[in-house]
């Protein structure tokens, strides 16, 4: 009989069952997704650890002879011993132990060590690997959180999913409480009612749970592929994730889902069994307002229908709470995520790619070369597609800035007030500041001289004479002005870190190990050669000297002061494609690589890589947000639908006292509007505030963000939400339209 009853109830309550089906499907999907992803992550982590550090459980090190090893091998519970000779830190032999049961590791390894006559101090454990199997050493203080973290996430997800399913069940329960009251009054025991509810839950949920689990397997496979594509190529040598799905994972996620559903079906059953049958029968499916409330705004705008709609929404506040919450959360998360990505994209672009568009296309770092002796410059310049080549080298030096040299602007910016750390050293004669040297090949230096309008020459340096107003915290829009007055025609540099060289006098006040070199100054200029380096940003007080290779050759003293590297900066002809840049990069490396060790980068390639990483992140986060949104929307849909369905009697009553169907339609519109607008009204100010804060933090301006703001996806998301609400109300409206007044009212539920 229960089976008959359940079947006919299922047939008669399609709408509310649909919401249960959706809820079950989504929670099964999510739980299984979480479990599966975690399993894969866990497996990946173990594979990575095994690959990078070995799969041993613990390790002994010391003087081990064949006999010791044999003894270890025969120790009970040891599966395998891998011996490496002479590789230990003390030159001793290491033995890597594998145990049959991992939990024996911490207990038995010291015993094995004692057996082999090795001090227990040399014993090492593979804590990370063991922690992945939840085998923890009580003395290992490091918090190995992956596992617990996942458990917490699982628990949280389960609780929220229980809330969703429970809510869906509650809606369909409310509709039938009266019937269970009748059953109870003619002698159905609480256990029988509970069994009926559980049986029904099983009937409704089996298929969606299976479908959710299967779909999640497909999704995990897809997600892992995405992760491999987007992240795998970014990190060279990264171990690729391989999809795997253990039957145990399926079992676990099914179990959690089933428990969840069981609890959700059991909760209302228990609540029922606590009431007397009379209370249950009288329990009306229509929640009533506890206190008199009014909705002045809605009444003002929409008249009587507005007030009715407002009261209906208020009376069912609790039922709609989960729907509202999940909708607001998912919408907020989605919007914030998009804003955050847009901001970080703008930021990388502004600070990285845009700025370097006219600065470099290919950078080749040449190891062990000196700019004055590098001979391949000409051949690189002659390559096809090359517009401009600068070969340069960097060196560090210090220089004294005297009080009388400082410009008026610099004084106005506060002088050296803001200096800290290693930037500036106060001495009796003035301030000792960093003076980075940029040494250009001679041709580039002459071109640079012409560019800044100085007399070209190879016997002196150009000083970058510019400083920012450090006192202004808005680092993107700081004023700048000349650093020095620019009257002196020589500059005394203290070259760092060389051997003392005869002939180079120790500079006044200089330290030992520093050499002084007095060089002529050709010009003071605000402009620096177009290189990737930036000056005056980290250390605002540095005084950059740009010098030609010929001059450097004279002052640098003996060659071979440690390993040097020079940079070949190549700017390709305009609009060079990625392929052209790749070809050019290969050719240059081909020329230089014969003689030197090189590393090379290519701006386009970096940009694509970066783009891909961002897109990968967005896909993953976006996926989660969409999942969240699907929950929210499913929830809204099922709730709204159930909400409308539950109110047939309410509507019948309205109709019977003369409210027209058009009036009811108006009520529906108002309700849908309120439900749909709420997330927007909550999200808009919150996300505006967040974006405002982020913009302020990164000193960006509104218009920049505005022109790129993610309006379209947010609008699409919103449209989807509204569509879900509208569809639910439309379906509800169809149900109400066919309402038979007599039927709905005649089925009186009072005793």
């Amino acid at each position, binding site marked *: 009989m229960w089976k008959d009853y359940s079947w006919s109830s299922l047939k008669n309550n399609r709408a509310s069952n649909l919401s249960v089906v959706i809820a079950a499907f989504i929670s099964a999907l999510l739980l299984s997704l979480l479990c599966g992803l975690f399993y894969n992550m866990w497996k990946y982590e173990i594979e990575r650890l095994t690959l990078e550090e070995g799969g041993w459980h613990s390790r002994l090190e010391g003087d081990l002879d064949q006999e010791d090893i044999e003894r270890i091998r025969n120790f009970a519970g040891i599966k395998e011993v891998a011996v490496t000779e002479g590789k230990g830190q003390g030159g001793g032999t290491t033995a890597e132990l594998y145990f049959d049961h991992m939990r024996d590791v911490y207990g038995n390894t010291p015993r094995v060590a004692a057996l082999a006559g090795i001090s227990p101090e040399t014993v090492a454990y593979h804590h990370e690997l063991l922690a992945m199997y939840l085998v923890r050493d009580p003395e290992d203080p490091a918090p190995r959180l992956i596992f617990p973290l996942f458990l917490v996430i699982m628990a949280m997800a389960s609780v929220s999913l229980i809330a969703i399913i429970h809510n869906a069940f509650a809606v369909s329960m409310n509709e039938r409480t009266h019937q269970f009251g009748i059953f109870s009054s*003619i002698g159905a025991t609480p256990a*029988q009612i509970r069994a009926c509810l559980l049986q029904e839950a099983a009937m409704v949920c089996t298929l969606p749970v299976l479908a959710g689990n299967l779909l999640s397997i497909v999704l995990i496979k897809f997600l892992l592929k995405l992760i491999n594509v987007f992240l795998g190529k970014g990190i060279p040598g990264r171990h690729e994730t391989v999809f795997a799905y253990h039957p145990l994972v399926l079992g676990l996620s099914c179990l959690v889902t089933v428990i969840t559903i069981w609890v959700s079906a059991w909760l209302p059953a228990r609540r029922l069994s606590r009431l007397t049958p009379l209370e249950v029968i009288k329990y009306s499916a229509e929640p009533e307002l506890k206190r008199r409330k009014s909705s002045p705004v809605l009444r003002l705008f929409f008249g009587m229908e507005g007030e009715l709609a407002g009261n209906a929404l208020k009376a069912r506040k609790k039922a709609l709470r989960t729907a509202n919450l999940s909708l607001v959360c998912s919408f907020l998360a989605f919007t914030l995520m998009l804003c955050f990505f847009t901001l970080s994209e703008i930021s990388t672009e502004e600070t990285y790619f845009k700025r370097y568009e006219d600065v470099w296309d290919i950078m080749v770092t040449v190891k062990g070369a000196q700019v004055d002796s590098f001979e391949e410059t000409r051949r690189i310049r002659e390559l096809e597609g090359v517009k401009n080549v600068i070969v340069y080298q960097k060196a560090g030096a210090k220089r004294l800035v005297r009080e009388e040299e400082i410009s008026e602007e610099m004084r106005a910016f506060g002088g050296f007030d803001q200096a800290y750390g290693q930037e500036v050293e106060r001495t009796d004669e003035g301030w000792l500041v960093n003076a980075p040297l940029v040494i250009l090949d001679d041709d580039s230096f002459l071109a640079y001289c012409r560019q800044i309008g100085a007399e070209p020459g190879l016997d002196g340096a150009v000083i970058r004479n510019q400083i920012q107003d450090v006192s202004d915290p808005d680092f993107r829009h700081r004023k700048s002005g000349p650093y020095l007055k620019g009257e002196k025609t020589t500059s005394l540099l203290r070259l760092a870190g060389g051997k003392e060289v005869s002939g180079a006098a120790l500079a006044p006040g200089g330290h030992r190990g520093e050499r002084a070199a007095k060089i002529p100054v050709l010009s003071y200029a605000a402009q620096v050669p177009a290189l990737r380096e930036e000056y005056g940003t980290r250390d605002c007080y540095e005084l950059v000297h740009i010098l030609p290779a010929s001059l450097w050759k004279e002052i640098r003293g003996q060659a071979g002061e440690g390993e040097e590297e020079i940079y070949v900066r190549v700017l390709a002809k305009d609009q060079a494609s990625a392929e052209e840049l790749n070809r050019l990069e290969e050719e240059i490396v081909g020329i230089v690589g014969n003689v030197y060790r090189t590393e090379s980068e290519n701006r386009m390639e970096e940009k694509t890589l970066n783009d891909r990483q961002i897109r990968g992140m967005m896909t993953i986060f976006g996926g989660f947000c969409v999942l969240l949104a699907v929950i929210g929307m499913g929830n809204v849909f099922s709730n709204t639908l159930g909400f409308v369905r539950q109110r047939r009697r309410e509507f019948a009553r309205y109709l019977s006292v003369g409210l027209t169907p058009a009036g009811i339609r108006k009520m529906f519109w108002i309700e849908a509007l309120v439900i749909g607008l709420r997330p927007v009204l909550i999200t808009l100010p919150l996300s505006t505030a967040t974006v405002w804060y982020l913009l302020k933090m990164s000193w960006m301006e509104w218009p920049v963000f505005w022109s790129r703001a993610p309006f379209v996806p947010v609008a699409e998301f919103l449209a989807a939400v509204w569509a879900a609400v509208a569809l639910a109300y439309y379906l509800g409206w169809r149900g109400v339209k066919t309402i038979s007044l007599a039927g709905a009212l005649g089925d009186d539920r009072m005793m």
Partner: protein
Amino acid sequence: MEILRCEGVSRIYGSGQNRVTALDDINLTVNRGEFVAVVGPSGSGKSTLLHILGTVDKADSGKVTVDGTDLSTLNPTEAAIFRRRKVGLVYQFYNLIPTLTVEKNILMPLLLDRKKPDREYFEEVVGSLGISHKLGALPGQLSGGQQQRAAIARSLIYRPALLLADEPTGNLDRKNSGEIMDMLKLSNRNLNQTIIIITHDEKAALEAERVVTIEDGHIVGDERRR
């Protein structure tokens, strides 16, 4: 032989200003095979008393014994089984399950007990109530009188010790209510069925051998005729 005994039964709804004493110190005994009519003005506590006797509601104080069972000692499961086997309840409004056929609705107390229905008795009950031709229909497709007959059939199907009916003829015309009263009297006489009915209907009350009058939660009259 005594089948029902109420001693000092009280039922109070609400609290404070909304406090309503629906039943106040009711003492009543009914013997097996009696046909009792309970009458009284609206709101006097008739339905409340019936619900307490049928264990769908609980008395706040006092003791109710039905067929030797003290109702206050029953846990929810025992109470359900007691309702199923010992009492048949007919409500003022029919309270049928709208998604099950009339036949299933009638057989429900038996099915809850996983008992095979006695076909002969079933035919007899539905036959005498005149709803044999409506067994396959859903309750919504029946008239009010037919629904009430189905509810009565359901209350009789287990041959309960006590049949409690709350205005079974309240919504019916003279002909229909006469038929139902005849049917109840028949089962009272033939099966020695103990029956307590609530009614506003003078004529129906006159059919009973004993009339109990309730006013404001007190029994103010108990008249045995014949």
